[in-house]
């Protein structure tokens, strides 16, 4: 998935707004390919290449441009112009992560947790890369929940819970009743056979201790 940035005039103000965004979510552009949509800029733009340099200096990885005018100098250097698909990319929600990730609460901004009020049925897959997932019901056999952060299940976990999918080894899995088919954190997994039988049917949390998964009862 590539992000699309669409600069607007006046460029100074637009860059300032971008800086403010980067300040709120420092890791937002990290490792993400970006396409710059230049269609909103006037033909007589003095220094398009300079603008792209400004973006690169902010650590933004540009893979291509869109809507560039052929007369602009130095644009080809920024990757192949993408064909104008006619339909602009969907606007993407930008999360406001706190700069200090240990801060307890995130006030305002985009939610980085997802609450599922229904049971997750067999065959269903809940994927939420941005943060924690809370399920109020049960997760059925043959269903899976994947989260960038931790997973909290207030019913019975009978299916799969896969936490820390974006490489977060500090994510945990909590459930009120463990009957899981599989629990995984940051790529380290255990199947039902591996789980301590004394924990089956009990409220349990799972976390990573180095490369090892640990599970313990919560009651």
């Amino acid at each position, binding site marked *: 998935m590539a992000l699309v940035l669409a600069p607007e005039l006046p460029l100074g103000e637009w860059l300032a707004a971008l800086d403010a965004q980067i300040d709120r979510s420092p890791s937002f552009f990290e490792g993400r390919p970006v396409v710059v949509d230049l269609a909103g800029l006037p033909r007589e733009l003095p220094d398009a290449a300079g603008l792209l340099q400004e973006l690169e200096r902010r650590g933004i990885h540009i893979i291509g441009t869109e809507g560039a005018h052929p007369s602009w100098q130095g644009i080809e250097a920024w990757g192949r112009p993408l064909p104008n698909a006619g339909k602009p990319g969907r606007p993407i929600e930008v999360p406001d992560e706190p700069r200090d990730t240990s801060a307890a609460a995130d006030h305002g901004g985009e939610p980085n947790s997802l609450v599922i009020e*229904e*049971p997750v*049925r*067999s*065959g*269903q897959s809940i994927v939420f890369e941005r943060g924690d997932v809370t399920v109020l*019901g*049960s997760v*059925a*056999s*043959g*269903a899976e929940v994947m989260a960038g952060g931790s997973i909290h299940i207030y019913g*019975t976990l*009978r299916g799969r819970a896969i936490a820390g999918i974006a490489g977060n080894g500090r994510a945990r899995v909590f459930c009120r009743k463990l009957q899981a088919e599989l629990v995984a954190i940051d790529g380290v997994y255990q199947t039902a056979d591996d789980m301590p039988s004394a924990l089956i049917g009990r409220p349990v949390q799972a976390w990573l201790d180095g490369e090892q998964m640990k599970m313990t009862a919560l009651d």
Partner: protein
Amino acid sequence: MAKVLVVTSGKGGVGKTTSTAALGAALAQSGENVVVVDFDVGLRNLDLIMGSERRVVYDLINVVQGDAKLNQALIRDKRVETLSLLPASQTRDKDALTPEGVERVVGELREKFDWVICDSPAGIEKGALLAMRHADVAVVVTNPEVSSVRDSDRIIGMLDSKTVKAEKGERIEKHLLLTRYDPARAARSEMLKTDDVLEILSIPLLGIIPESEEVLRASNIGAPVTLNSPSSAAARAYFDAARRLKGEKVEIVVPLQRTGIIGKLFGRRVA
């Protein structure tokens, strides 16, 4: 206001067709105007269970494709005059069903009947999806076995996402019908407990139908059990379920194993 009800399960052989016939007949016997529709195109059975197999001329596919009028395809039951059958085609397959055709036929049936009961094929493919597509109410038929419960769970997920009601953001009413319940095996804990099934599926219970000779016998002679042996335990459970579908409050009866005096004397064995 007509209600469209789908009888579905995911898994095959759990008793969808038997339940469709028994519930349809029970509702019709209470004076409701009922049509049972066989969506199992290519593997039709409902006509056999209803005892109408020798009267099929036109079928659902003919009506969906516009080759026959609805009235030509509907077969009125000889025993209960408010009960009709719209049979499936045995020679075609599910690809002959079109979403537009099904929508039109279900719409026409809504105008003629109080209850349109759709007997879904097993599986989660086109046939099953089209059978549930226009439903207001779903009866999820489940046996107290793990495979059946998991498949039912999958179907409930699809009822909540792939029906017209779900797509409009409304809730489809779902009921659990526990069938082939064997009191003797339940007593020996060889089946899933009713409470466990309810906990896993978390939808309200419509009834518990005991496994019984009467159900098998009724299927073989082509009569819904509620018509053939209305006083049997299975038929009574279906009658109660039909009343609950109409919104009446009826206590759920858990079938118990009947043990005679010998059973009581020798019922316990020291292992």
